[in-house]
């Protein structure tokens, strides 16, 4: 992150907010003035803003005095200085030369960051009863700050992370947030006092007739004024506070020069289950200066949130942090256990599947670093992985025949269609290739239908090692062009093509990742990460109801592929859909025009949902497919498509043929 630039930016924004706050206070004063004059009209019959009559004047003075008193009490409260406030929270000061190693380490860190920030280290306190990860600075007006760290932070964070948290707090100190925050607090308290006085007046006159008494009217007006003022004051102060958090984060990066540790501390906080918010009598004074305050869950509460969502803070430090951390972890795992092979893609971990005829048990996992000898073994019909009939195995012995067989898979049963297909191939490549495709399609028509998955597996395994990624992508593009008949895929072709794409490791990055296959893992994993993180931001998650259409589409395709009779399908569909939405969505048919485009859009929508939802949905689809104790070829293709497109792992149970 460019922390100097970021700091300047945040400072500008928070200055703007401060100006807003002052303006709001002035506006408040003006409103009070106007209201005072207006409610005086019935009494004196005059409307004079410049020189208000006696009662109005008294009213205005009353309000100002209330404000001053409220502010004054707050000043008394906070002027004791940081150390006294910290003790009021129940924190104990850490003595130098402490017996505990973790305490001396904390002191060391505080001193170190003090050097980095060119600030005198403040006294350090530990909040022993606080198990959440947190830290804050408290202080009065004259810079007598104290730094408080929770016990949870000491226990759960490592040295670098703790340094990051401390550096964040130093950021608040160096940027002068504490005095500003205290002043805002005093201003808000004075507004709050108006509200409180209004409350008092109203309570006292509840016995009598409520609206006849002038006290009640004044009380209502005071309450209205007070609460409006407090409301806007809070909103602006919270916005200001959020900017200062970003600023302090940027400072933390500047002081530690270690954005990773700042981000990892934030990540640990996000994953920490303990309630983050600090509670207590004086909590209001310090939540603005805490390292974190727990994420808000309701949309309207974000206006009052003193801290930005943790994810946003991590993104501001390094948008790709999570992906990097994961890649790093994977690397270290890899070096620990070099024998464990990483699956090429998310859904291709060892998956035993049962294809329509019930005889084929395939192992989908292809170790990405298959050497030539093991490749040969993979490809040999008896080599263990997959059972391929001898005839089919002979047909796909070299790369060019693999290419041909991938095209042959899509040859339609309909003669006129297949003829057009061959012509298109001849046009796209050449006649010789079209011939070889035709040869294959005609010599092993049965194998193409029943052993389709095995064939795809073997052909793609070989191609993946013999041609480059960009050529594979080109191949997929031309294949896609061939298959789009009148601007439209058939659903099955689409599903098969997606499978080929996945097996060739040539998919588009947004739909799949290639993490761990090549050394260049970052590009792929970032895309995945952003998508994976989307639910955490809480914005993109739709309720199930809103996604009813998408679920309906996927479910209707699923039930249809079972090949059952119409009524049975309708019934299954109804039961399945009821799990997701109350609304009725008509069942869709796989031969509708534009269905593939809609399907892709639905995948896009569902892809950003939390993984648990996606996984359980795919599992549900598997249950639907298995309802008749038999997974048809179409069902299998669809399941694979769903799993791949939603980035879930699919475990299709193996059932030996009876």
């Amino acid at each position, binding site marked *: 992150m460019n922390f100097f630039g970021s700091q300047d930016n945040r400072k500008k924004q928070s200055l703007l907010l401060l100006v807003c706050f002052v303006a709001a206070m002035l506006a408040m004063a003006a409103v009070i003035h106007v209201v005072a004059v207006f409610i005086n009209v019935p009494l004196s019959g005059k409307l004079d803003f410049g020189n208000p009559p006696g009662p109005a004047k008294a009213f205005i003075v009353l309000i100002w005095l209330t404000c001053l008193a409220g502010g004054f009490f707050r000043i008394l409260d906070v002027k004791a200085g940081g150390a006294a406030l910290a003790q009021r929270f129940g924190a104990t000061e850490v003595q130098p030369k402490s017996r505990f190693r973790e305490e001396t380490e904390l002191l060391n860190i505080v001193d170190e960051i003090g050097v980095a*920030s060119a600030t005198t280290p403040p006294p350090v306190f530990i909040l022993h009863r606080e198990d959440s990860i947190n830290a804050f600075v408290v202080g009065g007006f004259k810079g007598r700050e104290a730094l408080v760290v929770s016990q949870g932070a000491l226990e759960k964070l490592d040295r670098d992370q703790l340094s990051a948290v401390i550096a964040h707090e130093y950021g608040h100190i160096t940027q002068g947030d504490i005095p500003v925050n205290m002043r805002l607090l005093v201003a808000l308290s004075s507004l709050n006092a108006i509200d409180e006085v209004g409350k008092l007046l109203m309570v006292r006159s509840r016995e009598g007739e409520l609206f006849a008494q002038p006290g009640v009217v004044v009380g209502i007006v005071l309450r209205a004024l007070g609460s409006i003022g407090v409301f806007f004051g809070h909103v602006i102060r919270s916005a200001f506070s959020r900017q200062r958090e970003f600023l302090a984060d940027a400072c933390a990066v500047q002081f530690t020069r270690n954005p990773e540790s700042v981000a990892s501390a934030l990540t640990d906080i996000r994953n920490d289950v303990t309630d983050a918010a600090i509670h207590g009598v004086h909590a209001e004074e310090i939540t603005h200066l805490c390292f974190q305050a727990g994420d808000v869950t309701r949309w309207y509460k974000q206006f009052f949130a003193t801290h930005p969502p943790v994810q946003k803070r991590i993104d501001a430090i390094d948008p790709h942090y999570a992906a990097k951390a994961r890649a790093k972890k994977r690397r270290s795992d890899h070096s620990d256990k070099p024998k464990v092979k990483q699956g090429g893609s998310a859904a291709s971990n060892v998956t035993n599947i049962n294809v329509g005829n019930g005889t084929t048990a395939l192992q989908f996992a292809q170790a990405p670093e298959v050497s030539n000898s093991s490749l040969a073994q993979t490809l040999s019909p008896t080599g263990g992985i997959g059972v391929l009939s001898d005839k089919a195995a002979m047909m796909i012995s070299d790369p060019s025949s693999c290419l041909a067989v991938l095209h042959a898979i899509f040859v339609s049963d309909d003669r006129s269609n297949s003829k057009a297909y061959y012509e298109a191939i001849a046009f796209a490549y050449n006649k010789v290739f079209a011939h070889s495709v035709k040869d294959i399609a005609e010599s092993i028509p049965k194998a193409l239908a029943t052993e389709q998955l095995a064939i795809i597996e073997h052909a793609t395994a070989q191609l993946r090692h013999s041609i480059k990624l960009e050529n594979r992508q080109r191949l997929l593009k031309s294949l896609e062009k061939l298959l789009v008949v009148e601007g439209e895929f058939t659903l099955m072709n689409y599903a098969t093509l997606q499978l080929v794409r996945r097996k060739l490791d040539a998919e588009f990055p947004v739909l799949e990742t290639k993490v761990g296959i090549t050394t260049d893992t970052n590009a792929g994993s970032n895309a995945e990460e952003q998508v994976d993180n989307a639910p955490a931001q809480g914005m993109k998650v739709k309720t199930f109801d809103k996604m009813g259409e998408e679920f309906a589409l996927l479910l209707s395709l699923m039930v249809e592929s079972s090949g059952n009779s119409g009524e049975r399908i309708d019934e299954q569909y109804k039961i399945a859909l009821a799990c997701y939405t109350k609304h009725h969505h008509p069942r869709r048919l796989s031969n509708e025009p534009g269905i593939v485009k809609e399907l892709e859009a639905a995948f896009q929508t569902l892809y950003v949902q939390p993984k648990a939802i996606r996984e359980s949905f795919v599992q549900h689809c598997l249950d639907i497919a298995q309802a008749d104790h038999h997974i048809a070829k179409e069902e299998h293709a669809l399941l694979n498509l769903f799993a791949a497109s939603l980035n879930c792992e699919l475990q299709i149970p193996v059932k030996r043929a009876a």
Partner: protein
Amino acid sequence: MGIGTILLIVLVLLLAYGVMVYNRLVTHKNRFENAFSQIDVQLQRRYELIPNLVEVANKYVAHEKDTLTEVIEARNQASKACKEAAANPGESGLVGALAKAEQSLGNAMGKLNLVVEDYPELKADETLRDLHDELTSTENRVSYARQAYSDAVMRYNTEREQFPAVVVANTCNFNEADLFEAANDEIREPVKVKFG
């Protein structure tokens, strides 16, 4: 109002602005000089810790005299260079000399660490362990102090080179400050003292 009065007002305003810029430059200059003295403080702290470490090590490995002497000599040289540089922080040559002395000290410490690795009973010594903690923290402080110095120098240089200030800076002899550049990557590495 005559032209003379207006000119006078403009002149006074310009002068006031110049004084402001000058003061700001002084503030930044003092800040980075103070930041440098922080490096000095932390380096001194380190130089004081090293003899203690050598003393403890001497109890166990007196026969490795060469290494121990080398460390002490390098330490003395670095300490001297540090004092000279601290006396005159603006001069770039002295900072470079300090960086060189630091480097040879780093090399000597590296050798000492190799020696320590070979003697388990030395590694187990508690005093040495405490010293190690101190030294690690001090290493961090040294690097943080360097970083703070660089930040302060950057702020000062930026301030100095910007337009109206550059005029004041050049007339009033505010020289450009040097970043604390380590001679090579080795010096940037903290001295590692690992026990167990």
